[in-house]
């Protein structure tokens, strides 16, 4: 059963509260802090009275509890079966978890039960020994905040050597690729893990040097809803931050925010909707579309 109170934010918050009560450290201030950390923004309105009024027989009015040991909950069968299912996924080799304890567990499903039918075909080779080794080194560097010396092949086929501060490990489900986003050194770079020939752990770096400076751009388009375009466009761009406003029964304006780095990809995604979408700002993006249309019309006439 997926929807169960044993996984609920309330149970998690109360477990943490009881943990402090068992150690004799519980205060009103801590109760509120734990609820705000573990549960929802209005949860204190329900949890605090239930505890204070002894509706839940867990803590008395003197902040004492009959619970004797810090609360722990074994894994449910569902959780174990999900972990066992992960062992059927080729990407699990990248994380090398310890499968001990799952020997008698039936997987919840297998990777073969799921098909990503429009995933690109040139994804990373997750079974390649060198790839797995590099992945482990990168994870270590990210965990310990250590610099990496990386030797990789650029998209143009040149060998590049450099020292980088690893920042994020980004996975794209569409591309089926991992990319290492680096930051804070002399220059930042995005390196496809599939292009890395070797990497080496170096010393620690100052994590304060890591900064999230998004190079964001935005565009606004008008959407005409026919052939179910409204739903298709809204879903297709649901990975981006956006704001939609209705103009009339069939027309909407959508403002979409995206990384400047992905401009060509966004252009392609916009083109895939044809005349359902008309970009109305900025002019530079409109020009990109016009350029493609012009080239197409020229080809057609020839």
């Amino acid at each position, binding site marked *: 059963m997926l929807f169960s109170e044993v996984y609920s934010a309330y149970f998690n918050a*109360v477990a943490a509260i009881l943990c402090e009560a068992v150690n004799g450290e519980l205060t009103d201030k801590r109760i509120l802090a734990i609820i705000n950390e573990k549960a929802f923004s209005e949860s204190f309105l329900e949890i605090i009275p239930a505890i204070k009024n002894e509706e839940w*027989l867990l803590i*008395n009015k003197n902040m004492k*509890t009959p619970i004797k040991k810090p609360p722990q909950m074994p894994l449910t069968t569902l959780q174990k079966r999900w972990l066992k299912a992960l062992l059927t996924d080729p990407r699990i080799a990248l994380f090398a978890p310890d499968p*001990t304890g799952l020997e008698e567990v039936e997987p919840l499903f297998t990777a073969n*039960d799921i098909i990503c039918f429009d995933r690109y075909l040139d994804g990373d080779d997750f079974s390649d020994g060198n790839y797995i080794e590099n992945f482990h080194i990168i994870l270590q560097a990210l965990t310990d905040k250590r610099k990496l010396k990386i030797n990789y092949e650029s998209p143009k086929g040149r060998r590049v050597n450099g020292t980088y501060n690893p920042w994020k490990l980004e996975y794209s489900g569409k591309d089926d690729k991992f*990319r290492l986003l680096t930051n804070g050194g002399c220059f930042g770079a995005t390196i496809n893990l599939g292009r890395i020939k070797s990497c080496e752990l170096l010393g620690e770096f100052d994590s304060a040097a890591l900064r999230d400076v998004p190079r964001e751009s935005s565009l606004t388009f008008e959407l005409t809803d026919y052939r179910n375009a409204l739903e298709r466009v809204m879903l297709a761009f*649901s*990975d981006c931050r956006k704001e939609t406003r209705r103009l009339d029964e069939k027309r909407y304006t959508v403002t979409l925010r995206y990384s400047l780095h992905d401009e060509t990809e966004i252009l392609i995604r916009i083109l895939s909707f044809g*005349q359902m979408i008309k970009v109305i700002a900025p002019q530079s993006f409109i020009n990109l579309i016009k350029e493609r249309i012009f080239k197409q019309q020229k080809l057609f006439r020839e």
Partner: protein
Amino acid sequence: MSYSELIKDFSRIRDYMREFFVYGFKSREEIDIKSARSYDNERRRIESWLSEYMSFHQDTNGKNVFISVDSRRVTHNPLYQAWKAKSFTKNDITLHFWLMDILSPDKTLSLTEILDTIDSEYISFFLKSEPIDESTIRKKLKEYVDLGLIAAEKRGKQLVYKLPADKLNLQSWKDATCFFAETDPLGVIGSFLQDKLKSLPEYYAFKHNYLLFAPDSGIVLDLLAAINVHKRVELEIIDNSHKVNKRRIILPLKIFISAQSGRQYVAGCNTRTKRFKFFRLDSVLKIKPLDRADDFESYIELLNGYRKHLWGVASGSDGHIEHLEMVLVIEAYERHIIGRLEREKRCGAVERIDDTRWRFSADVYDAQEMLPWLRTFTGRIESLSCTNKSVEERFWGDLAVLAELYGGDGDVV
């Protein structure tokens, strides 16, 4: 009944999350709801769960609420929060912590021994407490045995209980859990596991991550359970265009997921007609397991063969094949376009005609389904032909409308 941020039934909240997340322009009056109070309660719940991602704007239609998330910048899917909002009774929460405290992996206890311990060490701790009756505790023990939280075994004629011995080193799964919680269709279970772990890694990021699959996790779980035991199911689905519920019986075979839109489907077979059908999971309301199909593997083989001509999830009306060819002009400095063709084609072939012209050809059930992809090559298409002439007509017709939309020939850059 007074408002609570917790919910008993997940189905209604699925619709609201979709409305706020996907659309975000509908006011209270426009959302298809039973009552204004119901809207206000659901909105308040979602605001409480997802406060930092909720936004509002006001226009002539009223106040519009929407969820705004850049999925590339969140490490954990915020929509999983809804799965952590199940309501419970005071006995549920009290007994949970008592039983987890009383039981251990090393010692078994009978129901009587558990009752005695509760009476002497837990209930007596509180001045105004009332006893919890035996049948409530018995039911809770059974529920927890079914969940796997408690192990039961026979001691003579009576059942005795203990906590299961857990040999699993969950810490070793920390990175795997963080990754698959965001990329697996049942990642919400990973999110439950993350709640048990301390100091989670924050260095993962996810691109092209469509968060809206989260509310459909319960449907995915039921379907995968049926696939696992080869059972046919009755789907109750909503036909949004006609606002009616329908029932369909299929043998579910695979879950199909679009990595480019986040849409999820179940691929199933009507075992009577032997025809394959795809149903979007966000339209599935309920799943009822039926009888077991003996020849499951033969249907899987059939589906594997069927997929060779499937572009997406549309199989056309009569299953016949349509042939499509597209010739692209690709200059020497644009060789990455050939790479695009090779990696983005889901079936078919790419061949070189001469130095600058390349042909893509495919045989599919429904070539209309390819139109969005074909349009992404606008600016390079020398010719397009299809045995289904309506595909050609629509492509060129749409392109003419698009050109007109941007000012026609006279207004090019």
